[in-house]
């Protein structure tokens, strides 16, 4: 549609505006393809490799302790072997940690009984020396599936409500395009977490829903401008692509400034917030980036595509009517 512009007598103000500017919406197939290049391998990866679910989802026990003296990962594993838990995940961290030795040790096992956990912790103290407990977590397996189900419902419900709201304030095609952009962002974040096998816990759900909130916010600002321009600068038969492009450019400064400020705060959280919030802020970083990208390169082009589909159906119908009239 963008390539074969209809001849118009008077210069379209939107086309005028776009002279010398990079045509974003016209190249929409490239952006769609680019996103699919992340999303399709991502979905394959989700199916093949799945996710690295934390104990919030799988159930299990986590013991994290800081030893007075650095301990070797092998000696921790030896202790776990005594309890037939040698498949447990053992991670070292903290100050002056190396690949094999550290003061901070995190052990993740299957869901243990209280007594068993206490026994293990006592043995660790006996064999490896004194420590202070940083964190202990025990989650039953049933909690996880509940959390997942709740998260799924929350996400779907928020999407439905957003479509409803945007359809009410704008029109359905805007609502659909904005939610498709949201789905895009959620899929991108899920893909990245599956690729990198980063851990997914309950705060990930919070991150995902924040991303939903941010992405929709970002998209609506551009749609709002399209809505305004439709009223002010659009005549029937005008170039819808140029209109969308113009709206994107008019809001571009704001899009970039805003993503910058949220990235500042999130980067600060990522670098200085400590281990406990690192995965959370990583999810947000990926999501905000994707959200900013999708509102510029995906949402508005999708709206043009959706509108185009509607228009061409109308056109075809109109042409048919003309034909039948002739006959």
């Amino acid at each position, binding site marked *: 549609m963008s390539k074969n512009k209809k001849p118009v007598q008077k210069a379209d103000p939107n086309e005028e505006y776009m002279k010398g500017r990079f045509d974003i919406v016209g190249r929409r197939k490239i952006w769609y393809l680019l996103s699919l290049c992340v999303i399709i391998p991502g979905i394959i990866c989700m199916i093949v490799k799945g996710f690295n679910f934390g104990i919030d989802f799988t159930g299990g026990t986590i013991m994290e302790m800081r030893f007075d003296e650095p301990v070797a990962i092998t000696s921790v594993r030896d202790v776990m072997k005594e309890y037939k838990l040698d498949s447990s995940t053992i991670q070292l961290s903290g100050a002056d940690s190396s690949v094999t030795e550290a003061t901070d040790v995190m052990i993740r096992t299957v869901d243990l009984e209280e007594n068993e956990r206490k026994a293990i912790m006592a043995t660790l103290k006996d064999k490896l020396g004194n420590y202070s407990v940083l964190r202990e977590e025990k989650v039953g397996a049933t909690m996880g599936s509940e959390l997942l189900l709740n998260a799924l419902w929350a996400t779907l*419900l928020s999407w439905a409500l957003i479509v409803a709201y945007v359809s009410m304030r704008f029109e359905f095609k805007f609502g659909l395009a904005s939610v498709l952009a949201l789905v895009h962002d959620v899929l991108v974040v899920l893909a990245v977490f599956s690729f990198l096998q980063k851990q997914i816990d309950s705060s990930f759900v919070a991150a995902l829903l924040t991303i939903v909130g941010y992405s929709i916010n970002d998209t609506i600002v551009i749609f709002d401008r399209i809505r305004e321009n439709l009223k002010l600068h659009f005549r029937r038969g005008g170039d819808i692509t140029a209109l969308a492009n113009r709206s994107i450019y008019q809001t571009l400064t704001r899009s970039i*400034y805003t993503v910058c400020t949220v990235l500042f705060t999130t980067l600060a959280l990522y670098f200085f917030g400590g281990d406990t919030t690192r995965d959370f802020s990583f999810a947000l970083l990926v999501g905000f980036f994707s959200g900013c990208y999708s509102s510029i390169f995906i949402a508005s082009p999708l709206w043009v595509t959706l509108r185009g589909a509607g228009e061409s159906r109308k056109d075809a119908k109109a042409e048919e009517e003309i034909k039948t009239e002739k006959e």
Partner: protein
Amino acid sequence: MRKGEFAKLIVIVAVIIGLFIAFVSPLAYSIRQGLDLQGGTHVVLEAEDTPEAPVNNDAMDRVTHIMEKRVNELGLTEPIIQRQGERRVIVELPGINDPDKAIQVIGKTAMLEFKDEAGNTVLTGTDLKDAKEQTDQRGQNLVALEFSDEGGEKFGKLTTENVGRRIAILLDGEVLTAPNVNEPILGGKAVITGSRTLEEAHNLAILLRSGALPVKVNIIETRTVGPTLGQDSKDKSEFAFTIGIGAVLIFMLLFYRLSGLVADISLMAYVLMLLAALKFLDATLTLPGVAGIILSIGMAVDANVLIFEHFKEEVLTGKTLRMAMSAGFKRAFTTIFDSNITTIIASIVLFMFGTGSIRGFAITLGLGVVLSMITAVSLTQYMLKLLIGANIFQNPFVFGAKSGDASGEVPQNV
């Protein structure tokens, strides 16, 4: 008049900066902190149906009540005991030293039984009036029991009938002690020996005093954050907060100059209002909650950016600063409104479906968006009006806009 407006502005700016410096950290610290920030233990209990005792609403209310009693008697500060859903109770114990012991006390059913040699249950925990830990003359730790009138009679009968034989005292089916009855005990009092320490006797006394749980209860989740890790998270998120907000303040100042300064001032007011609101709502600040605040600051800036961008456009069409300002606000408002409502929808859904810390996050985010909308459209607008009204600066440049000689469209300046 002009000077008056400028003076007003200076006063507002000075007051907000003063309040911010004086109150931001005391206010932040007075908000109740979650277990992940101050250390402590979080326990989720779930009642299970058994043929004898099916779970119902009344039973759960009693479980909650008994939990409150037990936790209070353990002498822990600021515990939170909450019913969640149909069959769960959440117990939060901040700043606790020995979580294992507490969990043990909380999780016990504490069903006390007195049995004769034949194994018949003669008395139960409901026959007790009081239980206290003691150390006797020989240094033995014990729990002194006082029966109700009816219980005293039953116990008297039990001991009278079983002189020379053993009776057993059981807790949750485990034998605590099985003494020989030497003579009938008629005074309505008895002791349970066998506690290794006075603390053990103390905990047993608590359990007996608070009574037995009416249904079987399982511990399905426990989370303990040690004080070291809690302090660490607190320090780090505080630092991240300072850096994050500092970067945003500088950014706004660089890109929007005087308008940016106005935005920074209202951002400070916004942070104070958010903290005050959290304090007022008695919310618990968790780590995701802090993240929510940090995030909402980024979003609060967005409202200001939208206003300034519209303002810049209006200036470029050749309007006066004053007219550009009111037109810019009008246009920005619909955008801010629509885009924020969608975020509010998301945070309401999050609040409804989320549990624990996710809820805390939803509250800070939702509240943040609402407050940021209010500060942006009222405070920022008011201060800018005063600034323009003061008529000291006439060059649009100081307001972050380019002078109005362009073609009527915003140039791409990034």
